[in-house]
């Protein structure tokens, strides 16, 4: 493209490139046996002005840096598919069935303390968000699902979530023994079912 750059120019180019710090004109000159490097720096800066790398002066020191308009190329996002943990899935299910719901309520339904990180993960995933505060003492934050949640799980609305009786019919209430399941056909199960359905309806 162009004629071969002269040796001083090449030396300045190499010295600035290899240096771990930006170099002052004096420092470059010292490396190159006291030569006057000003003209070379100016010529190099001009040569690199259009390129992907620029030679720039900052506070009287020279260094190479990538062109500002290409900075976005230096970072790359890599998406890693990660499976939601068991605890995460449970908390998500509780939010979906009972929203809006506070963390204390989630814990009382799960019967287990809920690590703070679990809700953070669900919010990072974009499935759960904070929708306000419950008007009770302590004013706890309350959570609900997002439109992304419906999209991800292929639901038109939360109404599409199966009710308790459907879960049971599918065997998802997973009783330990048949006798136990039969025994649980009692009045308390009915009540729970009604509650859950009412919640679902009222949320929509």
């Amino acid at each position, binding site marked *: 493209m162009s004629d071969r750059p002269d040796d001083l120019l090449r030396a300045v180019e190499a010295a600035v490139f290899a240096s771990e710090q930006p170099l002052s004109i004096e420092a470059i000159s010292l490396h190159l046996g006291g030569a006057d490097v000003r003209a070379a720096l100016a010529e190099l800066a001009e040569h690199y002005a259009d390129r992907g790398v620029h030679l720039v002066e900052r506070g009287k020191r020279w260094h190479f840096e990538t062109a500002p308009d290409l900075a976005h190329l230096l970072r790359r996002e890599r998406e890693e598919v990660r499976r939601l943990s068991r605890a995460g899935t449970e908390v998500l299910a509780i939010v979906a069935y009972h929203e809006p719901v506070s963390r204390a309520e989630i814990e009382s339904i799960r019967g287990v303390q809920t690590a703070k990180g679990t809700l953070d993960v669900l919010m990072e995933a974009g499935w759960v968000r904070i929708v306000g505060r419950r008007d009770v003492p302590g004013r706890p934050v309350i959570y609900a699902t997002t439109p992304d949640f419906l999209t991800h799980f292929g639901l038109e609305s939360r109404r599409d979530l199966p009710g308790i009786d459907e879960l049971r019919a599918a065997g998802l*209430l997973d009783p330990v023994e048949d006798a136990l399941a039969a025994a649980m056909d009692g009045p308390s199960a009915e009540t729970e079912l009604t509650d859950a359905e009412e919640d679902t309806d009222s949320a929509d």
Partner: protein
Amino acid sequence: MTDPADSPAIALPDDDWQGVATAAAGDEALYLELDGWEGPLDLLLDLARRQKVDLRRISILDLVDQYLNYIDQAEALRLELAADYLVMAAWLAYLKSALLLPREEQEDPSPEELALRLQLRLQRLAAMRDAAGRLMGRDRLGRDVFGRGNPEGLRIDRKALWQCDWFALIQAYGQIKARTQPVVHLVRDRMVMTLDSALTRVAAMLGVTLDWMELKDFLPPHADPKLRKSALASSFVAALELARLGKAEMTQDETFGPLRLRGVRA
């Protein structure tokens, strides 16, 4: 043998080792460094190089003499020699005598073969030594050429893409419900024959007859099958109790055979 192409790689400059440190410490147990030689093969190669001829044309007999002289000198100087050097000396002395013996008395492998083997090994070591020298003499990154001193670096930001499916979601909810539901244990009301009523019944029936009767004959006829199990168990215990009190005798002819009993008149 076919003449291998003349190659710079096996030309042997006297010294291509400037800039290379001598052997690392820590190897002393394995060999004695004689003026920096690493073992007998190394010493032999150095002696061979002093002949200033191509290794392919070197006189193995001359080389053997030089090695043996060197070892003699070292012994005269009371230098302690590593065993390797002495083993090599013994082997070379044997090789020399074999090379000088008349042909007919040769054993297998022939001394010529042994000499050739030694020559080939020296060639290979020389080739690698030369290659190492040329490799080390190249423009090396961080010594002669330099990478960028202060690179910005390319960053990869990892973003988690969370995955969960519909089934896992509702299954999780079902399991929470199953787990946290108040658990109620109910025992179904079943027909039973109590021990007291069995005792009364068996005692009364034993008073009626003196013949042996099978236990099953004491059970209420046409009983519900569920009641029958309970009645059998209670009647058996009642029979044992009556026998203990001396009011009944029991007999069984074989294991799992019919259990018979009859009353005992006082």
